[in-house]
């Protein structure tokens, strides 16, 4: 597809990189020549220097031939206006990054008025991700497929776990949990395990199943932890506001630590239940005073990676069970091997993943099996895709054991009539089924790509 991205910042760059790798023709517009050059030197894209609201620039970038126009600059208004222009000039779909909470309140109306296909808020995306991790503290990551009971959870097997030296085929018999282990990261190695795979402590496992079965699995692993009840949030950013609202809905107590009195006052006006404490988060005695040691969750959301990392380490040391740390510049996070490296959240990376997922869903109607959702797991090395099976797909209507599947492809879940189950060899995919497909290192665009080529 022909895709134009306005804004070569971190989100735009990450989105472009992924889309080029997936075979799309990508054009980038940015007013900053240096950013543009960097992007053009590193990727097979064409760049146009200029303001994406400028009609001449849009025309030069041939927006009329664009299938998707993605506005990912840092300014909401530029994003909105350029999307509007792009749409009027002939772009088929438009997506905008919208950040201002004032706009977010009426975002659905706005989407309709502007004819936007997607409006994404980086703060909200981050808040949703963090809240999911807090609800399931065992996991470093939780993904939910739409209209499907299954979740995909990534977590580390703790030391002294009963799962140590257990082969996968024994899992159900020994522990009674019907889950599927999709991927295992052991050190730097990534494995798509078969039935004879033996789990070890320290493995980072990606598991799918119903929430109930997942809980049983992780309880038996000795890794299950109850949802967080009492969260301390450092930094009263926009993400903090969205996160607080999400958490309050599920009855979690939230304490926000905000240094700036003005901001703290503002937060107290828009958030009803949360405790707002106006102290400097880098002051340890002040942190103690807020009752950080009693909290079972800590989220660091300041604008400074260094502060976030250091204070997260401190909270971890105090014995807070679940620590989540926001990191803007994720290039060095691999140096942070440790507890909360597992739950470092990068809003920009999340945004890029969401946008790419949406683009894929739009571009994949091949064989009339529509893609519903797509997630990158294990640092992007594992891809989970959900398809709505169409009647004309070649793999539909036959028992799975009769099909020759590509090596390294897993089908962890099929949802039929609102019920999800793990398919076995006798399962035949039927039209209308929602099928989740797990692959390594490459994303597939059509359901039939799971079949081995003849």
């Amino acid at each position, binding site marked *: 597809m022909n895709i134009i991205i306005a804004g070569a910042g971190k989100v735009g760059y990450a989105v472009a990189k992924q889309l080029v790798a997936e075979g799309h023709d990508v054009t980038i517009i940015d007013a900053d020549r240096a950013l543009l050059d960097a992007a053009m030197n590193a990727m*097979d894209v064409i760049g146009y220097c200029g303001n994406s609201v400028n009609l001449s620039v849009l025309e030069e970038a041939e927006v009329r031939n664009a299938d998707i126009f993605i506005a990912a600059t840092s300014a909401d208004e530029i994003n909105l206006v350029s999307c509007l222009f792009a749409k009027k000039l002939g772009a088929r779909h438009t997506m905008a990054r919208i950040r201002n909470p004032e706009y977010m309140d009426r975002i659905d109306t706005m989407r309709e008025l502007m004819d936007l296909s997607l409006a994404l808020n980086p703060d909200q995306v981050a808040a949703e991700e963090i809240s999911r991790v807090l609800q399931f503290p065992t996991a470093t990551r939780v993904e939910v497929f739409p209209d499907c009971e299954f979740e995909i959870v990534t977590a580390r097997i703790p030391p002294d776990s009963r799962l140590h030296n257990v082969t996968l085929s024994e899992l159900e018999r020994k522990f009674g949990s019907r889950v599927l282990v999709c991927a295992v990261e052991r050190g730097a190695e990534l494995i798509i395990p078969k039935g004879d795979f033996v789990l070890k402590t320290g493995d980072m496992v990606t598991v799918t199943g119903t929430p109930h079965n997942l809980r049983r699995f992780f309880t038996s692993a000795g890794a299950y932890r109850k949802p967080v009840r009492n969260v301390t949030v450092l930094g009263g950013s926009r993400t903090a506001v969205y996160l607080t609202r999400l958490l309050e809905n599920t009855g979690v107590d939230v304490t926000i630590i905000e240094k700036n009195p003005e901001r703290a006052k503002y937060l107290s006006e828009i958030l009803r239940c949360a405790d707002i404490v106006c102290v400097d988060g880098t002051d340890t005695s002040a942190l103690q005073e807020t009752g950080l040691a009693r909290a079972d969750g800590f989220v660091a959301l300041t604008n400074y990676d260094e502060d976030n990392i250091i204070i997260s380490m401190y909270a971890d040391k105090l014995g807070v069970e679940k620590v989540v740390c926001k990191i803007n510049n994720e290039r060095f996070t691999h140096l942070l091997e440790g507890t909360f490296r597992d739950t470092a959240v990068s809003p920009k990376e999340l945004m890029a993943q969401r946008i790419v997922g949406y683009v894929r869903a739009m571009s994949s109607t091949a064989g009339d099996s529509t893609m519903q959702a797509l997630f990158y797991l294990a640092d992007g090395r594992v891809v989970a895709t959900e398809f709505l099976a169409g009647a004309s797909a070649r793999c539909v209507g036959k028992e799975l054991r009769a099909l020759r599947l590509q090596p390294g492809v897993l089908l962890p879940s099929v949802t039929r009539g609102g019920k999800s189950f793990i398919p076995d060899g006798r399962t035949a995919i039927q039209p209308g089924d929602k099928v989740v497909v797990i692959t390594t290192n490459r994303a597939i665009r059509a359901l039939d790509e799971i079949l081995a080529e003849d």
Partner: protein
Amino acid sequence: MNKRIVGNILGKVLLIEAALMLLPLTCSALYGESVLPFLWPMLMLCAAGLLLTRLKADGDLYAREGFVCVGASWVLMSAFGSLPFVFSGDIPNWIEAFFETVSGFTTTGATILPAVEGLHRGVMFWRLFTHWIGGMGVLVFIMAVLPTSGAHYMHIMRAEVPGPTVGKLAPRIRKTARILYLIYIALTLLEMVLLLFGGMSFYEALLHAFATAGTGGFSTRNASIAAFDSVYIEMVIAVFMMIFGVNFNVYFLLLLGQVRSVAKSEELRTYLGIVAASTLLIAANIASRAGGFGQGLRYAFFQVNTIMSTTGFGTADFDAWPEFSRFLLFLLMFVGGCAGSTAGGMKLSRVLILLKSWAFELKKLVLPSRVRRIWFESRPVEDETVKSVHVFFAAYMMVLLLCGLVLSLDGMDFTTNLTASLACISNVGPGLSAVGPAGNYAMFSPLSKLVLSLEMLLGRLEIFPMMYLFSPKVWMRR
């Protein structure tokens, strides 16, 4: 430096060259000549190519690797490409064969052969076909046909396609390269058909179309285009030389129907303006000796285009023309064609930016507080681009003069040395005096021939890739 990826790409280049030799081989076979002069080099190319492509092309390709790739591939291609001349016995001396091949690939058209009509048909085909291959560049061809996944191939494109800035026509390099080659092939075929209408044989029409498309200048006849003695053929070739001297982006825009933006192109307008003005001036200058203004126009138009597009075909011995005409043509040799064309020279856009920056500096001297940018093609030029144009100009002059100094060892006159050096770095072919349209490069010493070969490569690749290839840093282990 990532030597493996460079080796891998060089291997591909050699395999492509082997494949391209199939055409002259077929030609030899059709005319009942021995195919061995092509068969042996093809086997050697395949062996070397297969060996090199076994290297894993992993890792990244940066500007440095791009430069080395382009520089080394042109040297290797020329070295292997000279073998058919040697094996067929047409040019037994290897250095002379190398000179002739470099002259072919770089689309210079400077020859060491006093008479070409005795060559084998297949060898002649190869000689003119090298122009066509070199015109657009083999690496661009590779990008057009092979599935290249790497994003960094832009560095190669930048090193091989001439001009101060290289832009893409489409988001994908591969598509850009394809568009360029499609335009190239279409125009070549069109010219061939038009030449057939002029009564040329298929063989000669095809070969002359090759030589014009690459703006090369080799001909199948001793007397070049004058041998056909046809106004129609002269005009077709003159017009096509002009066409191939124009930036190919122009044709892409025309295909898209953007006539207005083409009409606004500053480089194109200047190019056509210079051609028109020079033609008129020279026609007036030579009218008396050519037998009237009309005949003068005919010869002037052809000669101006052959020099401006750096082709080097001849219909008249312009060396015998009055000093004014000679000097004007000498100046056109510097300028060359437009950026992004198959022509050589400094490129018109560079010359324009140079002139503008001089005017700009002058105004700045008078009014130092003035804040302004240099504008070209209705947009401000990046300071980096202006700087690179200045550096390029200095390097061009330096190479031109230093190589002229080496040539002077052979004892030829000043005009010969200077114009030989200029005609080679600008990829024109014929110069003035002893290397004029009536002369050739045979009398130079082997050293001079190697220097001139180097100069042609420097000129075709716009100096820096070749210069980098020979800098000791590249070859030192780090």
